[in-house]
């Protein structure tokens, strides 16, 4: 495919996406205004926007969003660091890997959000419990991805590094680590929404602030608009993180042809 038709495709994709989004919002709003849908149950874009503006200017939304984000991002950061390190240890050391692999997989089979009540019992209803829940959701997929990334290294390349006399350290930094970069990024993309889920579930169980708390309170008041607004905000924020990761990945994988990043 030539460059002109590819940029043509890109324009078509962008325009279609924009039209779909605007169309959906208009349809929602019109059906609410014409009484085709019941605003008590499904609210409307205009109501949600008004709620957003009010909550934003009063400082409520920024405060709650800040709480949830700090829990999720801290959980993601530590979970990623620990997960990457564990994955590397497992991938590099065949013995350690073989010994602890079933334990890790068993942990992964545990529905970890169900640990929520226990974690809140141990760590209280503040930051620590949500952070821990987000961490527990992130660390295993990060680890498994890095592990797979290391194991997928082409054995011919491992032999190459050995024949040029590379030490284990050099093999790690020049081959194994760069080879896992794509795996690390796909794990990060999955993990950001896991981290948000961890924070929100923790807040549902018990909290005094956060997006989960906002939604829970609005549900108590049977206010669908006030439930949907923070939900949509959180979705957009998480989506922004995802796009950032994609941008960063494309930068780091600039050596790949654009359609294989």
């Amino acid at each position, binding site marked *: 495919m030539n460059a002109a038709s590819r940029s043509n495709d890109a324009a078509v994709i962008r325009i279609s996406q924009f039209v779909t989004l605007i169309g959906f919002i208009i349809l929602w709003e019109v059906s609410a205004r014409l009484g085709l849908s019941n605003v008590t149950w499904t609210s409307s874009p205009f109501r949600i926007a008004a709620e957003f503006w009010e909550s934003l200017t009063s400082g409520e939304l920024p405060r709650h969003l800040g709480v949830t984000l700090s829990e999720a991002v801290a959980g993601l950061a530590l979970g990623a660091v620990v997960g990457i390190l564990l994955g590397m240890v497992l991938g590099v050391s065949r013995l350690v890997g073989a010994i602890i692999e079933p334990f890790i997989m068993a942990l992964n089979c545990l529905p970890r959000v169900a640990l929520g009540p226990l974690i809140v019992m141990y760590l209280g209803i503040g930051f620590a419990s949500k952070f821990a829940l987000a961490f527990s959701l992130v660390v295993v997929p990060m680890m498994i991805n890095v592990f797979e990334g290391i194991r997928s290294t082409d054995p011919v390349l491992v032999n190459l590094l050995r*024949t040029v006399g*590379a030490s284990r350290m050099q093999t790690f930094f020049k081959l194994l680590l760069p080879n896992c970069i794509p795996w690390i990024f796909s794990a990060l993309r999955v993990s950001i929404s896991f981290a948000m889920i961890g924070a929100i579930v923790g807040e549902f169980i018990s909290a005094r602030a956060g997006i989960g708390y906002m939604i829970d309170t609005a549900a108590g008041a049977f206010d669908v608009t006030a439930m949907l607004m923070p939900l949509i905000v959180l979705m957009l924020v998480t989506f922004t993180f995802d796009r950032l990761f994609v941008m960063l990945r494309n930068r780091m994988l600039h050596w790949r*042809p654009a359609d294989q990043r």
Partner: protein
Amino acid sequence: MTRDKALSLSIRGLSYALLDRSKTMRPILDNVDLNVREGEFVSVVGPSGCGKSTLLNFISNLLPVQSGELEVLGAPVRSFNTKVGYVFQQHALLPWRSVIENTELGLEVKGESRDERRARCRDVLAQMGLAGFEDHYPSEISGGMRQRVSLARTLVAEPEFILMDEPFGALDAQTKVLIQEIFLQYWERHRRSVLFVTHDLGEAISLSDRVVVMSARPGRIIADHVIDLPRPRNGEKLRSDPRFIEYHDLLWSALRDEAANAMQVAQ
């Protein structure tokens, strides 16, 4: 004669067997004897699966010796020797490194300074006809160019003994001839010891001082012919030389039965 020269490679009675899936020992190499003198270019031809790559893996220390004796550059093989260069059957480039970064891998591992190794790499890449492609990534260059980068990476480290496993096997006929010419020129200038694995008899004859033929698996050396053709050689002219055709017939008659055997074993 050159017989009293030092040996770059000396193999005595090298055998190798491994357990196959049905848990029976399967012989891969059977009592291989092979010498390569310093500065000598030796080619190994043999049917597919006869153990040629395995043989190179022993010499480079990728496989530990099971039985037999193996000396490389005058010493038994105990560790990876950076004086031995290995051009793999696959080009084995790191996809995230540019052409020049791939070329400098060996020098980088040895701890040579960046400026020095860059200068040397540029030089060798230019000899390989890759000037101007230093900053391209492997995904952005052709298969023939990748193969040349892989060759440059080995040559720039100035190995005393070069192992080459069908380095030009995956190339189209025209590219192959061009790269052979480049390599032949390089070799005739530097005269390093080379052990060169190939399926292509013409290639083996036009490059080598000696060609050895291996049997179908388990691999043994079944023929060993000195190629007495004057150097510097010109690959294209050589092919119409009556002696070239004689050597070709000689090697082919040794190889033909083995190739047929190998096909039967496979079936």
